[in-house]
């Protein structure tokens, strides 16, 4: 696994600067949580990392080298927010997963790999022949995760992947994310507006505001003893209990 670095990344649409020289490092095997309000530039970070947003300044590097944007190997993969839009309704689960596989594996190898990946995300491999229409939101999100893993990525960007799921399903997906990070040692940028969710999966947290990262550090520190005004503001708004963060072990 590898290190993904944003170095003074700037993204501009017309005269509107969405990312203002943002620097962030996602270490080897580390989950970095990215929080902030909508419009703060969280999703633009994600899209810039996978080449969906035009980087007008700075650079995004993987292990110190530019991320390949051509050819079969795509080491940075992304999982999207809306599980109802992220799978082609006309392709079976298996086809969707297989599409992301690098190279052109034979029929047998493909089948085996689909089975392995679906099992990895706790889905019954017999669902490979189903169309997404027959799957629930949580199951679709697992397929999306399996597809991202099929590309054998070194870094996964998860953009609000539990926001549109029911709470009972959200828990299962979060557990899965933690399991996979432990088992596969994945580096991950985990974007969410839900601080409790970020606290649960991320070791380090970065807070975005107005296209800039205003604070970053270990989750316990940022969420437990915030230094920036905006982070405090954000934490105070969380419904429920007064925020305290225990030390992760």
């Amino acid at each position, binding site marked *: 696994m590898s290190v993904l670095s944003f170095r003074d990344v700037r993204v501009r649409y017309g005269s509107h600067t969405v990312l203002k020289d943002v620097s962030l490092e996602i270490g080897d095997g580390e989950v970095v949580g990215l929080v902030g309000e909508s419009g703060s530039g969280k999703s633009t970070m994600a899209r810039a990392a996978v080449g969906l947003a035009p980087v007008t300044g700075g650079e995004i590097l993987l292990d110190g080298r530019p991320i390949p944007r051509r050819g079969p190997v*795509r080491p940075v993969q992304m999982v999207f927010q809306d599980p109802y839009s992220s799978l082609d309704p006309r392709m079976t689960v298996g086809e969707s997963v297989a599409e992301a596989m690098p190279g052109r594996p034979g029929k047998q190898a493909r089948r085996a790999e689909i089975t392995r990946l679906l099992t990895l995300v706790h889905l019954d491999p017999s669902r490979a022949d189903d169309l997404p229409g027959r799957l629930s939101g949580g199951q679709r999100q697992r397929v999306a995760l399996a597809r991202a893993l099929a590309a054998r990525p070194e870094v996964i960007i998860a953009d609000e992947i539990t926001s549109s799921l029911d709470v009972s399903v959200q828990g299962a997906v979060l557990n899965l994310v933690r399991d996979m990070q432990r088992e596969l040692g994945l580096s991950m940028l985990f974007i969410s507006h839900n601080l409790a969710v970020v606290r649960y999966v991320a070791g380090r947290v970065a807070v975005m505001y107005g296209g800039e990262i205003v604070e970053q550090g270990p989750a316990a520190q940022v969420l437990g003893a915030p230094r920036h005004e905006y982070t405090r503001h954000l934490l105070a708004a969380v419904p429920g209990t007064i925020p305290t963060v225990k030390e992760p072990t």
Partner: protein
Amino acid sequence: MRAARVLLRPVGLAGIGLLVLVVLVAAFGPILWDGRATVVDTDHLLAGPSADHWIGTDNLGRDLFFRVLVATRLSIVLALAATAISIVLGVVLGAAPMLAGRRVGRVITWAVNVLVAFPGLLLVLFFAVIFGVGARGAALAVGLAGAPGFARLCHTLVAGVSERDYVAAARIAGVGRFRVLFRHVLPNVAEPLIVNATMAAGSVLLSFAGLSFLGLGVQAPSYDWGRLMQDGLNGIYIHPLAALAPGLAVILAGLAFNLTGEALAGAFGIGDVATVRTALGQATATELTAPVPGAVLSVDDLRVTLPGVHQPVHAVRGVTFAIKDGEAVGVVGESGSGKSMTALAVADLIEQPARVEANHLVFAGEDLTVPGDPESRRKHLGTSLAIVFQDPMTSFNPAHRIGPQLAEVSRAHQGLRRRAALARAVDRLRAVRIREPERRARQYPFQFSGGMRQRAMIGMGLMGTPRLIIADEPTTSLDVTVQSQVLALLAEVRRDTGAALLLISHDVSVVTDVCDRVLVMYAGRIVEELPAADLRTLARHPYTKALVAAVPDMETDLDRPLAVIPGVPIDPPHVPIGCAFAARCPLADDHCRAVDPPLLADAAGNRVACHKAAPHSVTSKVTA
């Protein structure tokens, strides 16, 4: 299945029947009747209808009936050829912006837009002159003239699909643009394109007839329907059938294409297919019961039934609760639990063909299940009920300014004049803490941020004097900071007006923060009711416990996996016989699977519907 059913409706049958007939005549007409259509009968030049020649003969004495039949092939083939040219060019031009990249794509789109603006007939005449008079020239002309329209349609459809995340995912995975186009985009835009192409074939047929009629299309000795019409026109006052018969053929063939297109549209789910839904079945008997005294809202055995594809869907299956004046009650549950349907039923917003039944549904003294004067009902609900929906973008009319939309309430229900109503709207916008309310009132909904739209929506509820505010996931689409502002505003409004609150949310923490009592819904029923403060600690239903445990908060133990509820939520059309939660419940036994547990109240007034729920030895309601 569904496609077959739709195609077998009268429109589909007529369209496909006609189309088959036209195609058969086109295929076999020239083989069977070419001889009779070309044989010259000098004894009967320009003759009228007779036993030998049903619709007469032309100036060479050829039988017109058979000429119309034989002309089918050329007319149809030319129409299809021109349509094919339109489609192929249209798809290429429509998909090009996606392949060519930003700058070139913009030029193509721009060019297509200019061409679309040209009158079609002008293009046809222009191309007809370029390509020369004749069948081939006319086919190219009509085909090219139709291409911009298709390109525009195709471009719009492609742009819609290109924005879907699965296209982005395929790109990220390294799938090339052409493969994305052929694998993901074109299959997902094919249906509307086919439907449109079928309908376009009908109008192309007409254009062709027109061109030939004007002498720009098919030239003698070939003939199509337009050509025959032109020949027949000279004698229209003597032998009207000679011109009318080919005209009729054009109409029939055009209808065949259009009706088939219409039926295809229905089969692909673009048109209105509501008629295939099932009936709701018999209404169940209701017994009138008295409302809970002192309650602003009292609901007894509320049932909401929706028409489903195979059988009626029982979205709400007997919900009983009451909200006291000024009280805040939360409803939590997953999607499909019936919580939103309950809210809509209370607001009298469920319309035919869905059915709402209840022993009583009394809001502020008026039973909404009893048919009443719709005018006074509207006034009653319009002034004493406020509603805030999840998506503030769709709850305002995007074409009207905010101020007048709020003022509308007072004008309709309180009889205020325009100026006075607008003044009140500005005042209410100020009351919900919108800065510069005079200026904001003149703005359109899109100029408001999500949080401000929710404020304005609450402001709209405050135009009257609400006794109950129904808020259906009011903060789900908002950021946490904005969420806390909106919730604070709701609390403030309740303090000022004494209004009760029915808050629907999937977020357990929001409900515990805001509400006095919580109703937990599962599969269209209330499974537990308890004080909000006890939700985390004293819940007795396994579903409530699981729901609370499944949501991480800022205190969650990071070393243990989150609790999950195994299985998937109940699909509303398929509710099992026994306890609906039994399949996902760790405590369930055969009794649970066979008998649906009733919702029983304990001494403190807390209710739970579970065979396994142990009664509390000490009730927690001393303070309440």
